């Protein structure tokens, strides 16, 4: 009895371990030649095509909402001239990577998990292994790299669109002045903010792709198994992304002193 309970309790630990081991396999596959350039470009193009428009459409209201909320609050403090700083803190540091990662995990991750899951249950992956080709090197590594690349650029897109959206809302709807917005922006923003946003985007892209590939390649039990794999991959990567985001933000705040003056 106790052993059954123990095995149930420990099951998630086992899954986490397998996921980590899979991540290590991918890391090893990174250095195996020949690099699958064609697959990488195709995947990068595919991921970009399914994420660019939703990301831009999410980024505009995101920047606007932050401008509205923080703008209202800051007005009560009588510090309208600092609304611009809210944009940098919220959008560049947090919202950019998070919106990016949600779209990478939701749009690209689910597509990857579904694709690999379907290949798994059609025995395509087995066939590939039997033909002497490692699916991790051939399929997973290009997808992971493509996800990281696209996440990196999407993060830039979200930052630009989000800050621009915040600017428009602040200036047009909240009667802020363009000068005050830009001045407060540069007063608090520093280059490391941008770097940490980029690093976050890369890490999030990595996590989302590894989870999606792992779940897809371990799909079992027919077509329903593919659906389950997609579902689990999205849920797991969302949870992981938020935890990792918290940790990385905490580390960043410790490492980089806030800009003063």
């Amino acid at each position, binding site marked *: 009895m106790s052993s059954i309970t123990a095995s149930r309790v420990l099951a998630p630990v086992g899954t986490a371990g397998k996921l980590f081991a899979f991540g290590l396999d991918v890391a090893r596959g990174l250095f195996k030649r020949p690099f699958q350039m064609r697959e990488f470009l195709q995947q990068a193009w595919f991921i970009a095509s399914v994420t660019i428009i939703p990301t831009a459409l999410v980024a505009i209201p995101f920047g606007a909402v932050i401008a509205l909320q923080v703008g209202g609050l800051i007005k009560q403090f009588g510090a309208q001239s600092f609304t611009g700083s809210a944009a940098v803190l919220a959008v560049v540091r947090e919202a950019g990577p998070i919106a990016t990662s949600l779209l990478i995990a939701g749009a690209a991750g689910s597509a990857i998990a579904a694709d690999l899951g*379907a*290949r798994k249950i*059609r*025995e*395509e992956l*087995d*066939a*590939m*292994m*039997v*033909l*002497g*080709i*490692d699916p991790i090197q051939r399929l997973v590594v290009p997808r992971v790299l493509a996800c990281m690349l696209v996440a990196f650029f999407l993060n830039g897109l979200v930052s630009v669109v989000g800050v621009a959206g915040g600017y428009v809302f602040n200036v047009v709807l909240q009667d802020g002045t363009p000068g005050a917005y830009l001045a407060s922006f540069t007063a608090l923003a520093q280059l490391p903010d941008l770097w940490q946003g980029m690093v976050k985007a890369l890490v999030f892209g990595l996590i989302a792709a590894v989870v999606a590939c792992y779940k897809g390649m371990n799909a079992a039990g027919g077509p329903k198994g593919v659906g389950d794999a997609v579902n689990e991959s999205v849920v797991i990567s969302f949870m992981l992304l938020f935890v990792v985001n918290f940790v990385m933000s905490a580390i960043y705040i410790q490492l980089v002193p806030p800009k003063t003056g």
Partner: protein
Amino acid sequence: MGVEIKVDNLSKSFGKQLIWGDVSLTIPAGEVSVMLGPSGTGKSVFLKALIGLLKPDTGSILIEGTDIASCSEKDLYAIRKLFGVLFQDGAMFGSMNLFDNVAFPLREHTKKTESQIRDVVMEKMDLVGLIGAEDKLPGEISGGMRKRAGLARALVLDPEILLIDEPDSGLDPVRTSFINQLFIDLNAQIDATFLIVTHDINTARTVPDNIGLLYHKHLAMFGPREMLLSSEEPVVRQFLNAQTVGPIGMSEEKDADELEAEKDLDMPPLPPIPLQLEPSNGIPRRSQREPGGWCRDNGVTPPPGSFDHKMSMTTGG
């Protein structure tokens, strides 16, 4: 020239459920062997263990001195180049057309030019009768065509060992006969070791040199075709002659009551042993044995009417 597969004391379980245990057999080089067994006895699992897709719990699988069950990932990928595998549904890559599917192993593993690849691919496509379908996607063709395309892909690297999972599932009897004839012709041509997993009795009775029977979590018997077809062993006899009387029940094994009820029923007499399929060009295969040879050497009287040229195809009584 074909390679021998030596399986020793192999067991595999999923969780607490034993799939099969203590399986030991040697699949002779260059011969055609069939692995039979009732549905759900882990025939496909056995096949996957042979290619190293599933790690067995105990035992060893020796191929050219490498133990598939315990070798490194790198050795495994190297040894797999000896294999051609035909999966149940063909396992074609859905995103590529048939030509690219068949060309895939050549492009990955050889330095052939595109025109050389084209020649090899077209030759194999011709062999399986798929000329004209090379631009189709796997989703656009029937199951039988996918299976034949899978066979073409399995053959493209001139394998030493050909593993075939249920070649007859989803094929009509005529196509099944054609594909069986194709296996015999291929064996004559390339001398590879063939292992066919099936539960089609007709295939099992007429195609192979050797038959194995997996039943009730173990290997019931493995040996020359004539040995199993003339065997009095109840399980072998029941299965190879497709009868209801015998130890195999609807749910794997019959219980005591059912066995008691048919205690007085005699097993029907063994049907005659049919002739083995011969290569269509009439030149005997290297591993081919003379009809009735095994029975004579071992002092077994084959059932009356065996090896008669007039009855080449009969299924059980």
